[in-house]
């Protein structure tokens, strides 16, 4: 079934500002991370979700703390929007002891059990069944918890995608599949890797509820996510949301994006989810100063986090072997 929203989403100004703050935090965090990476401060690889902020914010704003999400290599936004601590996230990218996973996991594998972040995932598609499992736990608990898997268009090529859609639908799990269709898997356009680039169509025949959403319109995302969450909480089974969105940067920081035309790159800024919502808020009567103030607060928050993190101790090498096996069950 395709969900056809009957009413236009409406929103209170306060909540609108919170959405803006959330998106802008992701924007600022990642822009900063990109600069730090370019400056040689962050080891390994990082993948930024600049241009996709509305998905993270819109979906996670529909969730409660106890709802769970699994995410991907491109997961900073989801983690921040889900309530992950910004400073701990930054510290993780640096590989510091104060990182959310103590520098063990890094950008691609971080998680935070305190706010239901099951984890970023270095394996494309790898986090999808994990979220299904958490949805199973929610169903068994009999609480109205839901579970979300974020994944990209590329992950639709992995067999676990349809396996998971099948299982979640069969078992009517409170599960939300959120596909961020950003037009690329790494350096390869979606039409080269998927025989049908409209992902809801691939899932629909399983009988799962599906909805295609403008992923750069935070209100549309929030509204669709809210519908999906309600379905889940009511025990009506899983939903797949396909988010049309835009990846501004290269696949990883440092990717020169030779495979994209200047026009394509330029056109994306027209769909800037942060700027769009800024305009939306102003149209709703919010004054620019309030928004500037949020931006300044966030900028200061990120700046302060970087300063604190820079001074943090590195990950403790003497605890290198901790948590390989859960404490109390050491091997």
């Amino acid at each position, binding site marked *: 079934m395709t969900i056809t929203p009957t009413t236009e989403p409406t929103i209170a100004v306060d909540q609108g500002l919170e959405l803006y703050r959330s998106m802008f935090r992701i924007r600022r965090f990642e822009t900063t991370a990109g600069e730090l990476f370019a400056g040689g401060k962050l080891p390994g690889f990082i993948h930024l979700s600049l241009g996709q902020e509305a998905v993270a914010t819109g979906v996670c704003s529909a969730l409660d703390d106890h709802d769970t999400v699994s995410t991907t290599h491109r997961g900073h936004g989801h983690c921040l929007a889900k309530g992950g601590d910004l400073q701990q996230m930054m510290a993780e990218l640096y590989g510091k002891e104060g990182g959310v996973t103590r520098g063990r996991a890094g950008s691609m594998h971080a998680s935070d059990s305190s706010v239901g972040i099951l984890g970023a995932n270095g394996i494309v598609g*790898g986090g999808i069944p994990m979220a299904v499992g958490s949805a199973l736990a929610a169903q068994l608990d009999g609480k109205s918890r839901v579970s979300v898997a974020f994944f990209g268009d590329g992950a639709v090529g992995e067999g676990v995608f349809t396996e998971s859609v099948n299982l979640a639908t069969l078992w009517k799990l409170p599960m939300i599949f959120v596909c961020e269709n950003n037009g690329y898997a790494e350096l390869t356009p979606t039409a080269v890797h998927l025989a049908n680039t409209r992902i809801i169509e691939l899932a629909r025949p399983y009988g799962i509820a599906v909805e295609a959403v403008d992923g750069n319109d935070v209100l549309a995302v929030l509204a669709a996510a809210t519908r999906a969450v309600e379905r889940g909480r009511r025990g009506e089974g899983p939903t797949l949301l396909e988010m049309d969105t835009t990846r501004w940067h290269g696949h990883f920081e440092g990717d020169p994006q030779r495979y994209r035309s200047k026009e394509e790159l330029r056109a994306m800024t027209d769909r800037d989810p942060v700027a769009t919502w800024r305009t939306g808020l102003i149209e709703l009567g919010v004054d620019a100063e309030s928004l500037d103030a949020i931006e300044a607060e966030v900028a200061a928050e990120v700046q302060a986090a970087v300063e604190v993190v820079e001074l943090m101790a590195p990950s403790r090498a003497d605890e290198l072997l901790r948590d390989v096996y*859960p404490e109390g069950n050491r*091997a």
Partner: protein
Amino acid sequence: MTALKYWQAVNTAMREEMERDPKVILFGEDVAAPGGSFGASKGLLDAFGPERVRDTPISEATIVGTALGAAMTGYRPIVEIMFFDFVAVAMDQIVNQAAKVSYMSAGGYAAPMVIRTICAAGRRTGPQHSQNLEALFAHIPGLKVVWGSTPADVRGLLKAAIRDDGPVLAIESLVEWSSRGEVDEAEDIVPIGSAAVRTQGDDITVLSWGGAAPKTVRALEELGDVSVELIDLRTISPWDRDTVLASVEKTGRLLIVHDAVVDFGVGAEIAATVGRELFGRLRSPIERLGALRAPAPFAPHLEDAYLPQPSDIAAAVRDLVRPSDNT
């Protein structure tokens, strides 16, 4: 004490743990309504209901991944992967996800889950249904691997695995499925990481596990004259170094027998470790007996030639012990 068949011991272990802990759930292909392809989960659907006992699609990767997610959020899933060979389909979810989640989350998450699987070596099931792949999993930090060769051990190890807070691969032997053994139902678990010394002896330590263990017992019945210390490893990872080293220190000789291919098998790690720790104190080279370097053939006499047999084991023991009789 009750005499149980091997499969009944598996069944009992699951039943007891599901009774004890409502967080223990079970799912897999044909495990619920059919009670398992080979009957291991007979009666569990009736006893615990369709929420806790579920049939799944044939989707091993997603079965394991779903178990993982449920384990991370409060449950203790047992999943069945029908044959050991099929575990390869779920390899990513086992190796990259379940085994690493505790470490990657710096202890934020645990994955108390059991992957039960059945090894059919010796049952003439051919190349894709007869593998002994324990070495692949022993090498992965974060994962534990157990394999009970008797009804008592398969029950006790499975119960321990279910209670463990991390992921455990619990292997079962199809050739032993209907073999009977005494099970002390008052006894709770067999601790993970503890080998069993089956017989005390002085001339040689013979170490085996899984499908090879009962064959080793049979081999020893032919070997009245040799004083063998027979050990069943029971847990492959983490293996019981102390028990093995203490035994070989005493006997000075070690024969390792497993049904897996010898090359790069679990026996290699044990031989390398014992060789290092007891350097200069061994009476003869450490020998390994296992399957030949080939996929498992189907034809019965080929499979018999492929896997170590009691007579091969007895001969290897004699070969090892004989030379030093002359010293």
